[in-house]
């Protein structure tokens, strides 16, 4: 195209970084440049997009504005730099081939995203050549992380490598103006992956319409195994109690809630209360499981058939998600409006199956029918889980749809580093510059399969993002499998190790996701973490920032009788707290414990009391999570649990049912006693002195929980309803936390409070604490991008390690 007089023309060299490759960015630039009558070129270069455009200044300004404001939905521009370069004789705009040289720049890999509206229209358009094709996608949607084998993100490096494009698909792939231009997983019924139906033994069935046959089986109460995006799901009709019961038995999962998938937000709203913020999370392109409050009656406009109580027993919440692949869309087209249980394809709490042979092996005996396909999954990626509290999002699990998008840090890492995360709910992170790439959910590293995924996916991420870490940050716990891995790489590859205390990492994680610098007060309440003094921490008030943090106060330590076993058996914690508070326990045993099955026998009770008294395999713990467990057990809600956090979740659910704002007298708990290491003999709770001190000369404060326990006990014995006790317990803790923060804030002249740790997954507690802190003119920061639980640990480890390094 001819431009105006050459004197008026300018030429810009533009570099764009962020999620800009494999997301339809170059066709977008191409179209935009033509719209403004500009000549030039665009190309991918080491993870960046490089553009040269030439034309009149007003047109160039318009182009730059459009670049920012109209970029494709899947892209995310992290930085945009431009310089003026000499004008050259030129006509037309070209998309140039990628540079294959070194990959020094920031490379971003897009997460897997839900079917876009354009693809969805094609899916249900009988005249389209991809009508009812379960694997259609475009540059704006479809699989990414789950199919990538290595960088660069090219078809040959994905699990689509084995599918040769047909002429039609290749034409779309090669046309800069097409929305499938360089969409690596592009496919159609002619050339792409296909569905297959397998019987309960994994033998292929002849079926003209596998989806219909699958749905027929579900209608008869059958259990289906569905190969999805990041793994296998087990599917059953959520309204069919017999089907769900059978699923629980076969899967050996007693009570842990199952997630459901529904056709659209309207169906979700028929079964659950749905705020606009919740609706927004439900329909967003990441398509997480959103924890919603189930309607107690069929209040919905469609008066739906109720969901079986067995889907989420004793749980007021329901995890709901919408279809996120074309296959899901087709499934619901055939199935209809009722919810389907869509739970991870595994037995018990094993990692979700994702490799075909393994999946069929493991799910045989659970599933009556398998609906599978021949596009391999490279990265096992669990569904993400999120919750909305007030108007803000509280991630529970950050995985599919989010990973591996980086979190931008408020600082630069001095060296490339790896943070290996925790033991359970493991997520690792690779960091370079101001970016931390948090992995998908790896899971519990106890499981060999999860550990293997951890080892292989750490290497995959290192290759994908071209980060060669020379430092590994890990938890202080010597026996986390992630720590053992870090030590091994330290030995094998001479990488530097940097241990980070668990609760310090939680604090730093919340600071980092908010982009904060400087110090804050951190309330870190969780189940347990290895403390600086070798004892088990978990109810901590810290003051500090990334490089260091001081332990200024903590919950009075009690015995953890039987270590991890006490976390699975809350009755042990009840005994421990009763013993600590000097309360009788016989009444509780007869009135509450004895009602439960299986009841710990007299022998168990006697032995547990002895263990508590003598400290036999009963380490001291300041755990806040175990305090919740103890109160739940005292109330007779739960004596043993079958999944993590179950007792505390039920306690929270009860508390929501009471609106009282009464608390146990504020003196009961905020009246802290000063801890002194000198007063503590070997059989007394340890108080860290040398490791992390508040200020020179002063020991951390011990927050006495005994008056609270005594008040709870008195209330229970008085016959106060459990909902009231549960509520007052929450209220009291919230007052204790906010009072303590206010006191610390005055001492250290800080007005920022960060709440972290798994206990703050408790929406009621976090809401109450936040309100009270705000009323005391303190600023509150809670997790909204990474989970408050150990899923967010790696981010904190990155932040702490980077600053330790900068300081040294």
């Amino acid at each position, binding site marked *: 195209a001819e431009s105006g007089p050459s004197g008026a023309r300018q030429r810009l060299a533009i570099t764009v970084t962020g999620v800009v490759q494999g997301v339809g960015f170059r066709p977008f630039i191409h179209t935009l440049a033509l719209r403004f009558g500009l000549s030039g070129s665009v190309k991918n270069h080491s993870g960046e997009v490089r553009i040269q455009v030439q034309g009149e200044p007003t047109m160039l300004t318009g182009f730059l504005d459009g670049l920012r404001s109209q970029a494709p939905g899947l892209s995310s521009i992290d930085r945009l730099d431009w310089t003026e370069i000499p004008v050259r004789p030129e006509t037309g705009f070209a998309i140039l081939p990628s540079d294959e040289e070194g990959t020094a720049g920031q490379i971003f890999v897009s997460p897997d995203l839900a079917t876009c509206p354009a693809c969805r229209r094609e899916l249900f358009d009988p005249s389209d050549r991809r009508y009812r094709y379960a694997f259609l996608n475009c540059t704006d949607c479809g699989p990414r992380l789950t199919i990538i084998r290595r960088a660069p993100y090219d078809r040959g490096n994905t699990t689509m490598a084995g599918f040769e494009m047909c002429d039609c698909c290749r034409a779309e792939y090669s046309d800069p103006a097409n929305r499938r231009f360089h969409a690596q997983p592009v496919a159609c019924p002619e050339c792409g992956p296909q569905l297959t139906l397998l019987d309960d033994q994994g033998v292929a069935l002849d079926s003209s319409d596998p989806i219909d046959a699958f749905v027929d089986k579900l209608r008869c109460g059958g259990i289906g195994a569905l190969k999805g995006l990041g793994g296998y799901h087990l599917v059953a009709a959520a309204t069919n109690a017999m089907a769900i019961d059978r699923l629980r038995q076969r899967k*050996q999962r007693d009570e842990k809630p199952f997630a459901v998938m529904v056709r659209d937000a309207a169906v979700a709203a028929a079964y659950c209360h749905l705020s606009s913020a919740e609706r927004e999370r439900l329909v967003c392109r990441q398509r997480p499981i959103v924890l919603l409050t189930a309607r107690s009656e069929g209040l919905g406009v469609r008066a739906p058939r109720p969901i079986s109580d067995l889907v989420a027993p004793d749980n007021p919440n329901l995890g709901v998600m919408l279809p996120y692949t074309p296959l899901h869309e087709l499934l619901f087209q055939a199935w209809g409006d009722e919810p389907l249980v869509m739970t991870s394809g595994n037995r018990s709490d094993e990692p979700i199956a994702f490799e075909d042979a393994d999946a069929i092996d493991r799910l045989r005996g659970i599933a009556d029918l398998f609906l599978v396909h021949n596009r391999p999954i490279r990265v096992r990626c669990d569904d993400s889980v999120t919750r909305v509290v007030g108007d803000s999002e509280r991630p529970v699990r950050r995985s599919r749809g989010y990973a591996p998008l980086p979190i931008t840090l408020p600082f630069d890492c001095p060296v490339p580093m790896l943070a290996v995360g925790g033991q*359970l709910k493991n997520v690792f992170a690779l960091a370079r510059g101001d970016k931390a790439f948090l992995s998908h959910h790896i899971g519990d590293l106890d499981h060999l399969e999860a550990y293997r995924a951890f080892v292989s996916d750490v290497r995959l991420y290192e290759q994908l993002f071209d980060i060669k870490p020379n430092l590994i940050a890990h938890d202080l716990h010597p026996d986390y499998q992630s720590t053992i891995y870090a030590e091994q790489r330290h030995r094998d590859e001479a990488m530097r190790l940097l241990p980070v205390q668990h609760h310090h990492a939680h604090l730093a994680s919340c600071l980092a996701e908010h982009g904060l610098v400087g110090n804050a007060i951190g309330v870190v309440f969780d189940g*347990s973490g290895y403390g600086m003094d070798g004892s088990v921490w978990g109810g901590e008030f810290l003051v500090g920032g990334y490089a260091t943090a001081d332990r200024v106060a903590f919950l009075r330590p009690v015995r953890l009788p039987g270590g991890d*076993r006490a976390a699975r058996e809350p009755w042990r914690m009840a005994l421990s707290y009763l013993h600590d508070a000097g309360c009788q326990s016989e009444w509780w045993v007869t009135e509450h414990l004895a009602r439960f099955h299986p009841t710990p026998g007299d022998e168990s009770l006697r*032995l547990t009391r002895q263990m508590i008294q003598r400290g036999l395999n009963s380490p001291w*713990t300041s755990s806040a999570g175990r305090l919740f467990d103890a109160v739940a057990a005292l109330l007779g809600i739960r004596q043993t649990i079958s999944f993590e956090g179950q007792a505390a979740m039920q306690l929270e659910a009860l508390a929501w049912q009471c609106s009282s704002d009464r608390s146990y007298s504020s003196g009961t708990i905020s009246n802290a006693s000063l801890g002194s290491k000198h007063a503590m003999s070997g059989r007394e709770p340890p108080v860290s002195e040398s490791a992390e001190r508040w200020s020179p000369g002063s020991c951390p404060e011990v927050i006495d929980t005994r008056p609270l326990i005594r008040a709870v006990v008195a209330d229970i014995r008085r016959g106060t309803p459990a909902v009231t006790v549960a509520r007052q317990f929450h209220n009291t803790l919230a007052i204790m936390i906010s009072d303590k923060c206010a006191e610390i804030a005055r001492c250290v002249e800080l007005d920022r409070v960060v709440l972290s740790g*798994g206990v703050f997954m408790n929406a009621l507690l976090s809401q109450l604490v936040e309100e009270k802190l705000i009323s005391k003119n303190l600023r509150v920061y809670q997790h909204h991008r990474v989970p408050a639980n150990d899923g967010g640990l790696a981010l904190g480890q990155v932040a702490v390690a980077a600053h330790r390094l900068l300081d040294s």
Partner: protein
Amino acid sequence: LGHGSGGRLSADLVGRVFLPEFGNEVLSALEDAATLTIDPRGEATRDQANRIAFTTDSFVVKPLFFPGGDIGKLAVHGTVNDLAVSGAQPLYLSAAFILEEGFQIDPLRRIVRSMRQACAAAGVALVTGDTKVVDRGKGDQIFITTTGIGVHRVDRDLSIHNARPGDAVIVSGTIGDHGITIMSTREGIEFETALESDTAPLNGLVEAMLEACPTIRAMRDPTRGGVSSTLNELAVASHVGIVLDEASLPVKPAVHSACEMLGLDPLYVANEGKLIAVVPGDRAEPLVEVMRRHPLGRDAAVIGRVVSEHPAMVVLRNAIGGQRVVSLLAGEQLPRIC
């Protein structure tokens, strides 16, 4: 503190402090007993009669007396067993005693008598010794160090470096008896069913095993740190994976329920009269038959197999096929649930 628990911290201490100073070919193999070839003229020889096994061990235990044994018995059995599992026939022992001033003569007599009986039962002679007394408060009643010499009658290369994929892992009997007994006795905790330490000399059983199965690749006695530590060392040294079958682990019901109660995993609890053997897979069942005929091998069982996958890792496979990593702990079992 944790450096004595037989876990990663102990290995770390040895690797960082002792090996750099003392390191030589024999020591660095980190076998339970050193195998030496000694020729009176100082000349190299392949004469079997000159191949000896040599080991030493110190014993500190609280309480000194416990159901099934005492510190004296432990001191004899510990050294006898280290020699035995190296494939040697134990012959001679030395004993050194460090006594705290004020330690009574009666318990000392009981301990010494018990050692004499243990030596007689194991067919070894205690041929040299030493006694030192330290000031009150500078020791804990009594510490015993024993050193033993045995002879390799036949040329066998038993080593933790020898395990190969396809091999089977055998344990000679129930696990966890000793550690749980000591712990409950020390803390005065009584279980419904009485527990007893398994301390015993294994040389008789080993002899029978070597005779029946000349191709045994490795043997170890899983003392401190339990079966898990021993198998982890084996997996690392041989660069192989080990898969244990949970259902096949022999654990006494009383020990099992005590472990449930205490929140301990029997795989990490100490034994004093058990051995682990690695043998070619097809030799496992016949060998177990032989072992079961010996009083100390009555509960012998194949508990797992050696695999090429996940080298250097030990994994426990449960009834539904789930596989958990059995890691080498740094020290004590610490809570990990957050």
